């Protein structure tokens, strides 16, 4: 039975049915009168409705899903995907950014350098993870470990899940712009396979900073955008400079996995179980792992030079104009 503590607006109909089912079950239990037939039919109804709702989600619905507090985060997936994971810390310059986790993981008995944004579950961890907003140290830690990965010929696997890079003054003082730019530049010339998966929020430069891969994939309900829809709505006349019109901006910005696939920004959409990744984390992890291994297999046919050229060409192509 699907269950989740927090309901999103578009899940309202599901919520009602689930509550009714619960009532019927309690009734059965307390009065000993069998309503299992009714329950069974309602379950079918629920499944059908769920199917319908999640196959017709708007860009905004997906934005909310991508930010769902129960959605699995990088470390949740590593737990399910990796045989083992040794987290490594520090940029050797200033600090260790908990908003980006990195280390050597074993997937399918093979070593990989794994790097991903990390959000927090409870209030305390959210603070500690800076809500998944990476600071310069995070990108510099990533760069240090990517260079180790290249030297040891380890594939680099990145998980993207951030609202945006940290923009506070401390981040500015330590060069958040330089850190993002340098990390993208480094990734562009890496001589090992790089596979990127957007698992939640693909938030502008903060996401792209560790997302320059040979293959970039997105989970079905994740989003990838140049700016948060609310932010876009708040500054454009088109949306009356009204931050509450984020849903319109979300549609206009074309931020869903399908949109990104259609525009050739990503190479693959990884389907999520009906109801979203947070309802069936394990199933989702299995699909992510399969996608990574499948794409890795393709990339392993390439030489180090070909890998770098392939990645460069992949991003070089992007852009629409008339000559």
């Amino acid at each position: 039975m699907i269950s989740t503590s927090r309901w999103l607006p578009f899940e309202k109909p599901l919520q009602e049915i689930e509550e009714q089912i619960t009532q019927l079950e309690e009734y059965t239990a307390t009065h000993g009168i069998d309503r299992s037939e009714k329950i069974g039919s309602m379950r079918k109804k629920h499944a059908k409705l769920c199917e319908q709702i999640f196959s017709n989600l708007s860009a905004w619905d997906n934005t909310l899903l991508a930010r769902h507090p129960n959605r699995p985060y990088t470390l949740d997936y590593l737990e399910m995907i990796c045989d083992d994971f040794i987290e490594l810390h520090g940029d050797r310059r200033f600090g260790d950014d908990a908003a980006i986790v990195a280390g050597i993981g074993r997937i399918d008995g093979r070593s990989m350098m794994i790097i991903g944004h990390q959000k927090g579950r409870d209030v305390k961890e959210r603070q500690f993870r800076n809500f998944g907003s990476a600071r310069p140290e995070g990108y510099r830690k990533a760069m240090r470990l990517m260079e180790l990965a290249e030297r040891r010929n380890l594939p680099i696997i990145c998980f993207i899940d951030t609202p945006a890079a940290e923009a506070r003054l401390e981040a500015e003082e330590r060069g958040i712009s330089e850190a993002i730019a340098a990390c993208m530049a480094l990734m562009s010339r890496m001589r090992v396979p790089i596979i990127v998966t957007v698992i939640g929020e693909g938030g502008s430069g903060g996401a792209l900073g560790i997302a320059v891969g040979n293959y970039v994939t997105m989970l079905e309900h994740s989003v990838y955008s140049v700016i948060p829809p609310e932010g876009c709505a708040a500054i454009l006349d088109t949306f009356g400079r009204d931050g509450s019109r984020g849903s319109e901006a979300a549609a206009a910005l074309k931020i869903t996995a399908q949109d990104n696939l259609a525009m050739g920004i990503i190479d693959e959409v990884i389907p999520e179980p009906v109801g979203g990744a947070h309802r069936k984390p394990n199933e989702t992890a299995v699909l992510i792992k399969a996608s990574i291994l499948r794409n890795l297999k393709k990339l392993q046919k390439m030489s180090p030079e070909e890998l770098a050229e392939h990645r460069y060409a992949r991003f070089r192509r992007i852009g629409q104009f008339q000559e």
Partner: protein
Amino acid sequence: MPEAINPKKSDEANARAMAEIPVGLWQKCPKCRTMLYGKELERNLRVCTHCQYHFPLSSAERIAMFADDNKFAEIDADMQPCNPLDFPGYSDKLTRGQKKSGQNEAFRYGDMEINKIPSVLGVASFAFMGGSMGSVVGEKVTRALERGAELKRPVVLVCASGGARMHEGIISLMQMAKTAAACEKLKAAGQVYIVVLTDPTTAGVFASFASLGDVLIAEPGALIGFAGPRVIEQNLKIKLPPGTHTSEFQLAHGMIDLIAHRRDLRSTVAQLITYLTDARPEAEAVGIVDKE
């Protein structure tokens, strides 16, 4: 200083070139509010004679500033933006931007000689949609850098931008990775990349090709940063100390190499390029390329 370098000459060249651009008789300095006589302002390279505020320059003025004798062979001038997301209102914005700036887009690049050294020059126009980077800007910046790599020439990019152009959505974001990769290609070719940061250079542009120069030079008092201070104050509901996100702030925090008054900008760039190119027989470059 080698005699080839002659800042005076360059400034005259600038002055000459700028004299050709008509301006109002009087202009008010947005910083100190002084009324400035147009011709005098031109003679002073559009820098306020009282508070040294650097007025924005047109791409033509920037080109005149750097290119020997204002000789500039523009490339891809006809490249036109489109509306890939069919984003509401974008097409009109583009038309207005083109009218306002008299350019097809917010960035121009081409071949020049500076101090007699063949180089690639790219200049942004803040006048065109805040110099924001969409497909055209990203493509042109990338081509400028790739041209430097192919022809083994130094590249000078003069930046002025509010960041990525959200009307092209994710496509504009991707220009960050595309241009950053091109910077790496130029480096791999052993070439020199000089960035000139002008008011303002922020967000997606500062967080990509504008931060990756071998030498970063800023005009005084320019707004430079990831998120502008106003954005931060609004989003975080905090008050920032004065002077953050400026050229001086970035210099103090080790993010840029120099601040150059507009009067010295050309000579500084010319010297850097001269000094960084003379030593190196281009045969060597190959060696470096193999190395990367």
